[in-house]
């Protein structure tokens, strides 16, 4: 039976070493003979740390001491220690081995059982896997960043960076719900620049684009945090002013806009003067849904266009 157990240890697919209390080898299995190129005859009776200097490092000696004197089992990982027993004629780089150190008692004598497994192939697969995971992570980040940009583009005007029609509708719906809940008034302002087509025709589209950006900047400066400014397209802008107290508040805002645009726009050495026609509708007086509020502000704006431009009108004055 003893012989059978001995044979079995020889057949085990990992390195098995038994050391006595002086760290001399008393058992060296066949796997190790093949792995290290050192036969039983060469190793039995030899001091293991002398034969394999990697095993004379402090963590290993600590583990041997722990097993002999404190009956402690210790696991030493290839991740931290790399290699304990150098393989013969090794051409693989970065050999990784796990080592398990356990106490063994037999006939009142203390021994140490060492089990060594080679995980080099496993580690290189893990390395590849880690590399792959890193690539996937970075691709995922790129996709996420692109999605964020696309989301922004889908709801913003490319020229001015202002919210577009879709985002404006969404914001207006929210503002209406809020106003309904809090029983507040809000104003929708439709703004169309006067004479913008002439600027485009005389100075070119590039100048027209610059002018639209400059107008957007000036309008932005007039806004509170809760207000919304959007570009509908061409030279049309829409604004939401929530939480206003009276019609007079909306009139003040309209006057401020006209004053802000009255200053000349300077670029390429030219001085351009611009005016705007503004139509205003009020929630809940004129309508209580976004489509009608915008339509009525639009109608009011046309009223201004037809009566000399550079002014503002409330929807009620149309009828």
């Amino acid at each position, binding site marked *: 039976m003893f012989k059978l157990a001995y044979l079995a240890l020889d057949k085990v697919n990992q390195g098995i070493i038994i050391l006595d209390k002086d760290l001399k080898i008393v058992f060296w299995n066949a796997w190790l003979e093949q792995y290290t190129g050192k036969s039983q005859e060469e190793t039995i009776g030899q001091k293991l740390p002398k034969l394999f200097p990697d095993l004379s490092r*402090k*963590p290993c000696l*600590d583990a041997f001491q*722990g097993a002999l004197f*404190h*009956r*402690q*089992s*210790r*696991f*030493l*990982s*290839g*991740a*931290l*220690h790399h290699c304990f027993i150098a393989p013969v004629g090794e051409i693989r780089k970065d050999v990784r081995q*796990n080592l*398990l150190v*356990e106490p063994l008692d037999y006939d009142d004598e203390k021994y140490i059982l060492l089990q060594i497994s080679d*995980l080099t192939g*496993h*580690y290189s697969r*893990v390395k590849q*896997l*880690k590399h792959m*995971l890193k690539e996937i*992570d970075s691709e995922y980040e790129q996709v996420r960043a692109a999605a964020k940009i696309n989301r922004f583009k889908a709801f913003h005007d490319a020229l001015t960076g202002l919210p577009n029609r879709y985002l404006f509708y969404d914001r207006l719906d929210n503002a209406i719900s809020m106003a309904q809940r809090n029983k507040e008034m809000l104003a929708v302002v439709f703004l169309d620049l006067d004479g913008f087509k002439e600027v485009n025709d005389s100075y070119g589209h590039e100048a027209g684009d610059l002018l639209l950006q400059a107008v957007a900047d000036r309008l932005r400066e007039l806004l509170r945090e809760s207000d919304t400014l959007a570009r509908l397209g061409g030279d049309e802008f829409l604004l939401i002013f929530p939480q206003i107290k009276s019609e007079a508040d909306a009139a003040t805002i309209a006057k401020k806009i006209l004053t802000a645009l009255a200053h000349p726009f300077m670029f390429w050495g030219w001085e351009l003067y611009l005016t705007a026609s503004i139509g205003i509708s009020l929630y809940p007086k004129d309508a209580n849904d976004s489509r009608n509020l915008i339509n009525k502000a639009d109608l009011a704006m046309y009223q201004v266009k037809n009566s000399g431009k550079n002014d503002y009108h409330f929807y009620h004055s149309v009828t």
Partner: protein
Amino acid sequence: MLNPLQKDVLTELVNVYVGHAASLLSEMVGLRILLSVPRVELIPEAEMEQGNLPLPEIFSPGHIVSSYLSFGQDFRGKAFLVFPVQKAKLLVNACIGEELLLEEGDAVPPRFLDTDFDVLKEISNLILNAVIGEFGNLLETRVVFTVPEVELIDVTESDQRLFLKDGVYILILHTNFTVAEIEVQGVIMIALNLNSVSSLLKKIDFLLEEQDV
């Protein structure tokens, strides 16, 4: 469960034990590693299971990494080293010198590869051996150890599996790791039977009496 004096003695003892483990760990990974146990608690297991006592903060919902070993003979029980999964990954990365790419509040648990588990197995082996071995020395008794097993578990299902039935009392050591300027909190839990707890308390009381003389 522990009076303030017993708590002080136990805290001092375990800090010496983990300090020893920390110096071994530092040598092993070539980094300065500090270990400290600022707080120690002894809780009857039944109370912990019934939820009468607040569980350590570490048991907020989510994944945890737990490694445990059993020890036997006169001083018997099971010892666990438990980390929230993010912290465990931080500790492993610091030890093997890999980049720390974790973001706070990451919803997805970090990916653990079996080589990471090997590192945790070795770290917990060293720490738990040091603590349990020194308890054995303190009680002048022989302790037989197993090598730890490491698991990634969901905390909701962990309660039953963590506190195994042969433990009547749970000794909780709140542990701070400082590795390469990174702070990692973990908990060492030692499930002890009644005999082991009473011999430990008896020894602590003896140490206290000795000091008084």
